[in-house]
Every structure is written in C-alpha cells, then in structure tokens.
C-alpha cells in the first residue's frame, strides 16, 4: 500500500492533475463562502463538465471542490453568524461571539488552521485504514445504524444551553418537522396537506438558513450597529494559530471523530459539527465560556467537518452508498467517469482511490492558504453597517434558497423556519437540538423499522448495539451529574452572597441603631 500511496502522490503532483485540483478548490471555496450553497451545489455545477475526462482528472476536480467547502464556509459562520453551508452551524455559536468581541481574525485563524489539520488527519486516517475498512462497515447493520442515530439524538442533552426542557421541546419539534413528507417505511405522506412541494420534506440547507441566518439579520437591523465595534489590532490570525496548537489534542480527537462518523453509511454526517461541539463541551474542564466566544467551540466543529469529507468517501467508493448529499452527486460522477464503486476501488482500482485521498490533502492545504490570505479583507465585512449589509445578504440567501429546487416553496420554508428561529433566539432557547432532531428523524425511524422488521427484539442484544447504548447512558449520567453540581455550586455561591449581604445589612442596621442611639 505504501508504494501505491507514493505513486499516487506523484500522480497527483503532476501538473495536469494539480491544475484540476486548483480549479476544483476554487469552485469549492466559492460555493462554501456563499451562505446556502455547499458541496451539493458545487458537485451539481461541476458534473456536466467531467464527461469525457479521464477518471483521475475528473475526481481531482470533484474532490478538490468537496474538500474545501467546509474551510471557506467558516467566513459567513464566524463573521456574520450565517451558516456558510449546512455543515458549519456549530461554528456560529462561539465563532460569531468572538467576532462580536472583535476577535474575528483570531477565530478565523484558528478555524482555518484546524480545517487544514482536520482535513489532512481525516485523509491520513483513511489512507491507513482504507484497505481494511470493508469488514468494519459490513459489521454495521440496521440495528447499529439506529443506535448511531440515537447517539446523535442524545447530543441534544449537551446542547440545550442550560435549559433542558426547552432543548427537548425544540429537539422534538425538529423530529416532527423531519417527518414531513414521504414516510421512510410505509406508503404514507405525512403533514403534506396535498401540497406537492411538501412530499419530499424540507431541504436541510433551507432549514439551516432559516434557523440561523434570518434571526441574525433581523437582530442586526434592529440593533443597527456594525457586527464588531472595532477590529482588533494586528496579530489576530497568529493568535488563532497558537490557539489551535494549544488545543492540538482536541483537533486530533475531533478529526478522528468526524472521520468515523463520516464512514458510517446512512448517517450522512450532517450533524457531525454539532456532535463534535457537544463532545468538546462535555469533556472541557471549564465549559462556562462555551457559547460566549470560547475558541474550542470553533476548533472542534471545524476540525471535524473537514475530516468528515474523507470519511464519507468510504461508503461511496467501496459500497456505492453515498455517505452524504455531496457524495450522492459524486456517485453519479463516478459512473459518468466509467467507474464502478465496489471492492475494486480498494483492489484493482486502489491507485485511483489513493489519488482521491491525496487530492483531499492537497486541496485542504490550498484552501486553508487561500482563506488565510483573504482573512483580513473579508473580515472587514463585520464593520459594514447593517443597513447596507443585510439587504445584500438577503438577496444572496434568497437566491441560494431558491436554487435548491426552483420552487417558491423554498423561500416560504426559509422564512417560516426563520420566524421560529427568531422566536427561539428571543426567548433564549438553543436552536441546535432542532437541527439534530430534524436531520436524524428519518434515519432513526428507518433503521428502527428495519431492525424490528428484520430481527424483532433480538437486535437489542447485538454487541455493538449494547456498546453504543452504554455510551449513551454513560453520557447522559455524566452530564446530569455535571449539571447538578454546577447548579449546586451556583446556588451555594448565591447563598454565600446572600448571607454576606444579609450580614452587611445587619451590621448596617446595627450601625444605624448606633447612630440613632448616638
């Protein structure tokens, strides 16, 4: 494998393929930076052009694009609090908070560094495991996939922002809205009211835009102040790079996690950024600054979402099952290039697969460098007055929303979810549980149905199922203990403060009495 890997690297380094990678990277950066457009749009855009190309060049173009959308989508997430693509919402929580404090450059510096690191780690993990990974994926049947969906849903508990009831409610509404459209296992259409548009359910890109972009734009207009009062002085980017180095184990852990979730077929990795964020928060000693501008809240999701792209290639290349919406289009591209996904891709076609992995590495490096170079200029957007900024953004995201199916329903859905999102933002309810419920609604239902229909209740005794189940239970218990302790600590602090205040009052009263007496 090592020889083949070296050979593939030499191939990738040749001028022709490198040219295609650069072109793909450029397209990827463009669709990433525009809110509402992501890898799916990039793939659909490039697909007509790969016809007639040789497989190496075609894949260099497509994978160069896919590798970097999660690098450049950080710009809107951090700078204006709009998800640059559906996979970059978790970055908003802390990245945008940092931008408001004037630390935009630091957040971006950290984000691009770990995007690069995550992308490369993801590719290297894939490189090391690609030939051995088939049996692992084959051991994951419907019951295991259901448990992974449950594990994702359990993350809701970590992302409620200290309001468990609100978090569960929002998560449940997400599950319900995720159920709109054709049912996964029976011939039913749910909540469609004979409106043809609703038969396919709501597109995730629109839900993400509505939930995060619309409320932010409304609030920007109400406040009528630029996002950041003043830009911080020089050196923000370097500070971000240092942050990434300080938290190198978090970077590594999130990358491996993102990669693994990406490999699991059928889960799609659409909430991998939230899961990485939740894990970072749960394992942090002091998580009090999460959501208020903690750089770890930027590092974890950004590392994970770039690493995920390498992982989603496994089900696509080795099994012909797309691991994400982006790879669903990639699968079509593979067939157009005359390739057959299957074990051949890690057998006789291994050099091609390895060249794809190297493409990921090269494109991640190029993408991160380009973003670094542009940070200073693009970060200025935070000083633009909302009256100028918001109308421009509104036009961009409306067009982005409309291109998802060229139906007026797209815009209605985005605005409708936007109203919900704004309401939740006003009352301080976390919106992440909604996205998690929404995305995992269909897989959770589908794989539960398949497990029951195939195995009855027997599936609950399968070893991997039991391991994941204990992970979920453990996670919930740990988090419950933590939150109780924190509440006790807060109460104790409040009581202590109360006592001292009361004591002060008493002494003051005594003083007063003394005065009176005097």
């Amino acid at each position, binding site marked *: 494998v090592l020889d083949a890997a070296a050979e593939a690297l030499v191939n990738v380094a040749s001028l022709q393929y490198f040219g295609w990678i650069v072109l793909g990277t450029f397209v990827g950066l463009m669709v990433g930076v525009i809110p509402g457009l992501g890898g799916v749009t990039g793939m659909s855009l490039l697909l007509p052009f790969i016809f007639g190309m040789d497989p190496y060049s075609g894949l260099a173009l497509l994978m160069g694009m896919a590798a970097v959308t999660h690098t450049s989508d950080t710009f809107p997430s951090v700078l204006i609090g709009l998800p640059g693509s559906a996979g970059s919402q978790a970055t908003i929580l802390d990245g945008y908070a940092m931008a408001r404090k004037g630390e935009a450059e630091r957040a971006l510096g950290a984000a691009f560094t770990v995007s690069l690191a995550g992308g490369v780690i993801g590719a290297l993990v894939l490189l090391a495991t690609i030939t051995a990974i088939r049996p692992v994926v084959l051991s994951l049947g419907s019951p295991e996939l259901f448990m992974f969906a449950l594990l994702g849903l359990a993350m809701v508990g970590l992302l409620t922002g200290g309001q468990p009831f609100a978090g569960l409610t929002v998560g449940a509404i997400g599950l319900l809205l995720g159920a709109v459209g054709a049912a996964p296992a029976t011939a039913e259409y749910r909540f469609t009211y004979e409106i043809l548009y609703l038969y396919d359910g709501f597109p995730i890109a629109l839900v993400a835009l509505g939930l995060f972009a619309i409320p932010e734009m409304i609030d920007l207009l109400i406040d009528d102040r630029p996002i950041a009062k003043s830009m911080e002085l020089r050196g923000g980017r370097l500070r971000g790079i240092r942050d990434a180095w300080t938290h190198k184990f978090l970077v590594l852990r999130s990358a491996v996690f993102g990669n693994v979730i990406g490999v699991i077929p059928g889960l799609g990795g659409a909430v991998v950024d939230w899961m990485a964020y939740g894990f970072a928060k749960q394992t942090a000693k002091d998580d009090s600054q999460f959501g208020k501008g903690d750089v770890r809240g930027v590092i974890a999701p950004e590392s994970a979402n770039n690493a995920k792209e390498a992982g989603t290639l496994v089900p696509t290349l080795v*099994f012909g099952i797309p691991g994400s919406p982006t790879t669903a*289009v990639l699968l079509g591209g593979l067939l*157009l290039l005359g390739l057959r996904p299957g*074990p051949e891709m890690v057998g006789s076609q291994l050099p091609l697969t390895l060249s794809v992995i190297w493409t990921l590495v090269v494109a991640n490096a190029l993408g991160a460098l380009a973003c670094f170079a542009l940070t200073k200029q693009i970060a200025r957007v935070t000083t633009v007055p909302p009256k100028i900024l918001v109308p421009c953004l509104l036009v961009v995201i409306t067009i982005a929303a409309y291109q998802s199916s060229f139906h007026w329903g797209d815009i209605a859905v985005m605005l409708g979810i936007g109203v919900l999102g704004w309401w939740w933002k006003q009352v301080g309810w976390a919106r992440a549980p909604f996205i998690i419920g929404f995305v995992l609604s269909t897989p959770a239902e589908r794989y539960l149905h398949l497990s029951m229909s*195939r195995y009855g209740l027997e599936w609950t005794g399968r070893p991997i199922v039991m391991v994941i189940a204990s992970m979920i239970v453990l996670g919930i218990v740990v988090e419950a203990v933590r939150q109780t302790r924190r509440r006790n600590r807060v109460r104790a602090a409040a009581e202590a403060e109360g006592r001292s205040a009361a004591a002060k009052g008493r002494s003051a009263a005594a003083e007063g009495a003394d005065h009176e007496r005097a």
Partner: protein
Amino acid sequence: MRARLGPTIRRRTTRTLGAALAMALVLAACGNGDEPDAAPEPEPAEDPAEAPADEPEEAVDDDFFAGQTITILVPAAPGGGADNTAQFHAPYLQQYVPGNPSVRVEHDTAAGGIAAGNRYFNQMEPDGYTIFLSAFTTTIPWMVGEAEVDYNVAALTQLAAFPYTGVLYVSPDTGIESVADLPDNLDGLVKGGVSPTSTDLMGVLALEVLGVREGIQEVWGYGGTGDHVLAFQQGETNIDATTNVVWNRNSWMQDEGDAIPIVAYGFLQDDGTFARDPLLPDVPTVDEAHEILYGEPPSGEAWEAFKNVMAIIHVAHSMTMHPDAPPDAARILRAALRDAIENDPNYLAEWGEANPAEPFYTPEDLDQSQAAIQGVDEAFIEWVQTFLSTEYPDEFG
C-alpha cells in the same frame, strides 16, 4: 383513474434487436428515417411522431434547434440513474442535433418526481425544446395509479428508451445453488427492498409467479437500491432482487462467490416468453424457472400481470417529448440520437461501461416500445393494484 392508460391495444410484435438494427441501417441509407411500421394495426392518434410519418425527410426544418437551448428535465436528484442518462446524452445531443443547440439538465425532485411529470405534461409550453427524461420515479407511480399523478406516460413520444429488466440472487449461505433449490430452502430466507411500489415490484411479482413469495420474510423500507444491496452483503438479508443495471454494477459479488443469480427476468418477446438477459446467459428467466420447478410454463393472473409490468419496465427509462410539441422536434431528436448511437464509436463503448443493455432507438424499436406501453392491459394493472393493497396494506396505501 386507469382510463389514462389509453386505449387497450394488443402489444405489437417485437422483433429482435439485430433485425431491427439491420432494418434501420437500410432505412437510414434510403434517407427516410421514419418509415411507418409494416404492421397494419392502427396507431392511437395522440402520437405525433406517427402522424407525419409519410412526409418526406426534406420537410424537416433543420434549423428548429439552431441557436436554441434544449433542456432535459430529470424527475430525480443529481447523481442518480436518471440524471446519469441525461448527463450522458447532453454532449451527444449538442454535437448531433443540427444547429448545435446548448443542452442543459434540470432536476425537479418535488414529490419524488411526480411534480416534474405534472409540470411537464400540464404547465410547460410544449415548444419542443424540453425533453422529459421519463424515469422509474414517474413511470411507476403512474403505473400503480398514485392519486397525485396527472400525466400520461403512454402519450409521451419516445425518442430513445434504455431497457431495464431484473435479477434475483441469493447468498451461498442459504444452500441454494439454482432456482430448483428455492422451494425447499425457503425457511430463513430474508429479502430486503425499498417498497413494493418501486422497481422492487418486479421481484415481488416474479416470486409470486414462482409460488414462493409468501414463504420469504420481506423487509421493506431501505433507503434505496444500493442500501438493500449493502444489506445483502452485510448478511442482514440473504435473497435480493434488483435491476439489471444495479446488478451489473455489483456483479463482482458473483465473481467473489458472494452471490448466486438464480433468475434473470430477461426481455419480453412477441410470443409472450422472455429472451434471456445477454448479461446472464446461463440464468433461467421466470418462465423457464417455472418450468424447472413445476414442469409447465406459467399461467394465470400473476403471470399475465408480470408480463404487463415488464413491458412497461423495459421502456420506463426513456427520453421523451411532449405529445403536443411540434412534430419536427421529436423527429430531429430521434434522428440525432440514432446518428450518435450508430455512427459515434464512443457512444456504445461509453454507454456500455455502466449499462448492460443497448438503447432502443430505431423507429421500429421505438414504435414497438411505444405500442408496448400503450398496449398494456388495464385489467392486469388493476390486478396488480388489488394485489398490492391486499398483500401490502402498509406499504401500499
């Protein structure tokens, strides 16, 4: 609701592809691309490609597409089989249609593709500049009579059809080596699928004809064809049925000894029997399998239903033109496609990489596939609907 299947016409005789090809070459040499079929049966008037068949070729306005844009409307998402067919043909159309129009591919996945069918049939201007890629996502809902369908697949003028059929295969762990072993080894057989109202309908009816369907545990609800093929590889299921195209993509399973194809449905012939799938020449068709199991050819309602469903499936995946479009559009496009298929050395080589069967593209083949889809016997389609609603009340509402 079934009335939209159009008049019931007996299916016209289907010649072998080779004969049709030779015939087409002769016709092409004569410079008359649209000779009406020799069979004297009347065609339904709604088919515009037939009406001007007697006009000489010179009447064709070659400038029809010059400076225009052809849109291929795909009722499915980018990346799927339907999209692949559209993307594959876009550059060929650009090259071979006189005037070299631009060609773009548009996707509309609303309502699983049904909305695209409705829009093409009822709302879009039938100006001849939009090709509808009729696919399983629109043909099967039409065939089983879903309420939202407001289009008539039988009325569309076929420009080229890409024939599909199906394959039934088992895991070697089942102890089954050929279809003869099937009835004795039903215990423990588990079959996965998306839904009985998808391409999986072929497998359901094939097993019904062979009298073994009820002995097999069926698990419905997989996300797509690829997902239940993966479930088969995982051992979650041990018998699976899929299309010839998907089988072709996964035929390594047979090479590696992970799967044994036991029935390959093949292609329906004029005598009501099936010709074997050229991809699997050693595997029996459904009628042959029935003879192996029971010593006589199949008969009865399930068999008739299976044949009618297969007649539709063979041409379910096709490029079509609106019935009210200017006749020139369909004629020029048919001629251009034939030109590409017959004269471009790349076409069949590249098409064959992912597709096991050659397209229907000669006027004779297209007339026959058109007649096949128009001639489907409503009574048996009704039988299929009753069968689905009694046998699969959960999966078929």
